[in-house]
């Protein structure tokens, strides 16, 4: 019996390996996924390679050229303090992407651990652990983030921690549900019977089963983190100046809305929108590719 189930598990593992190229092909087949990937690569190149090519300071104030519309000297114009908007947009992209990826990764790791432990242990510990998740989820995250950002003036690291502090909740719920679904599968019991340690069972037998689901959640989490950070910066609670940030640029522009300074308002908004669209497209593509496999 045990041998049989191990055999099955072996076959399943084999299958997963064989499916990998297939998965990538399905992921790539969709045009929208390609669009998302291209947009994201563009955004990454724009933010990190862009400043190496377009060598202009993002924080230097050109006091003679404040409020300047786009020109040969400043392709996207300048803001009210004479900052070069194109350069600011690039540097702002760096912190947005860094924070987005880091916060999503951190919340994924913590959420997976938390959810797995809760699901595997079960009983009253599970109840308490999930109640804690329910409780924090009951308060809309932006209210918590706002508060934490006022309380601890954020730098890059604190910003990542703050954003991750609410983002892991959803992941942990997802993972727990997955663990409960496979906890009593024969191959997990077989592994138990063969004396595999809990740690090994978690790693080898459970995680591969829901890695895809978690990956989708983490991908969409990047978009959420970037948006949340932009929102906080928009409210004036972003990284401390002079670090430019898309949300902060937008809120500065709002003060000059009535002068019709369109060149201040569209670039940061479009940058945030691009980040959201690209990552959401990739997340949807991943989800479709995974769901097709499971069908």
């Amino acid at each position: 019996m045990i041998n049989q189930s191990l055999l099955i598990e072996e076959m399943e593992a084999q299958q997963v390996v064989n499916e990998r190229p297939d998965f990538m092909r399905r992921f790539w087949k969709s045009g929208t996924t390609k669009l998302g990937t291209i947009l994201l690569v563009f955004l990454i190149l724009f933010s990190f390679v862009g400043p190496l090519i377009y060598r202009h300071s993002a924080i230097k104030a050109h006091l003679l050229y404040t409020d300047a519309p786009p020109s040969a000297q400043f392709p996207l114009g300048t803001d009210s303090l004479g900052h070069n908007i194109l350069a600011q947009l690039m540097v702002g992209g760096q912190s947005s992407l860094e924070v987005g990826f880091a916060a999503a990764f951190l919340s994924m790791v913590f959420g997976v651990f938390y959810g797995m432990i809760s699901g595997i242990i079960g009983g009253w510990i599970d109840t308490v652990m999930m109640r804690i998740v329910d409780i924090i989820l009951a308060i809309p995250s932006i209210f918590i983030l706002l508060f934490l950002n006022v309380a601890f003036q954020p730098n890059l690291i604190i910003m990542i921690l703050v954003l991750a502090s609410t983002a892991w909740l959803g992941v942990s719920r997802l993972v727990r549900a997955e663990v409960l679904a496979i906890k009593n599968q024969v191959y997990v019991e077989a592994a138990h019977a063969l004396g595999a340690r809990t740690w090994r069972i978690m790693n080898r037998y459970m995680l591969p089963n829901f890695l895809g689901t978690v990956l989708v959640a983490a991908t969409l989490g990047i978009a959420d983190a970037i948006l949340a950070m932009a929102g906080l910066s928009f409210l004036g609670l972003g990284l401390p100046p002079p670090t430019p940030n898309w949300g902060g640029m937008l809120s500065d522009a709002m003060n000059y809305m009535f002068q019709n300074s369109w060149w201040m308002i569209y670039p940061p908004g479009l940058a945030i929108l691009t980040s959201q669209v690209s990552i959401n497209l990739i997340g949807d593509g991943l989800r479709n590719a995974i769901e097709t496999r499971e069908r």
Partner: protein
Amino acid sequence: MLKYMVRRVLEAIPTLLGVTVISFIMIHIVPGSPVRILLGNHYTLERAAVLSKELGLNKPLWIQYFIWLGNILHGNFGFSYVYDKPVAHLILQALPHTLIIVVVSILAAHLFAVFLGSVQAYYQDSIFDQIATVINYLFYSMPSFWLGVLLIIVFSINLHWLPSGGIVSSQVSNPGFGDWVRHLILPVGSLFLISVAGWARYMRSSMRESLLQDYVRTARMKGANEFRVVFVHALRNSILPLITMFGLSLPTLLGGALFIEEIFNYPGMGLLYWDAVNSRDYPIIMAITVFLGIVTVLGNLIADILYGIVDPRIQYR
């Protein structure tokens, strides 16, 4: 049904207690005391001691918690440090403003999303469906604060059709009902546009599945016209996931309302919270977080009950 509701309400109590603990802990991990902020330039050690005694801040934390919890249960949310008014009074002042924009936009967005999603599913992969899908995706990914700014630019600054913020015109001596409605359009519109996008996506995929079911074919066979097939037979089933989201979206919308209120300078709960956080007005911060917890739990309950009303297969136990 009644028994089920009572049980659900009882189950919600630990969660709500948890919310009170969280909001209490939250404000006590903050560096810097409210006393220092209240006194500002007049800060001396003696004054600080007197004031913190007045505010009850010198007692042990857990005693402060139980005093506060007891007060809440009696409907006493304390006194705002900054406004020098009862917190309950301030919340009751702000709440209707937020409720009106959230409720109107949630209802309108749901109705429209159900309609749009259904039509998209019916004419799936047509040009109309594809254009609508792209537009939905853009609004779905659109930051609420940027959308708000864009609406102000278009409708207030360029077209001069609508006011850019506030709740009544200050220049008009006797602003009437029409003036008030005009101030609501842009905040409601922003929330509406953002919510429609996500819900229409759900509705579309849900309706697509329904239209493939046997009972839809049966309905067609017995001669029901297409309108009836889509909006009566298929709709009843495909609307289920949306009904759940109706209740669950309440907290998200309240979060979105925070940005909208800030942009439109609209004196609702979000703006009250934002001001309170900036001035470290702890009683307001705590009261609003507790209040949000209650709204979320209520939203979940509403979702469950609505689900049972539209889906008779659900049994309450």
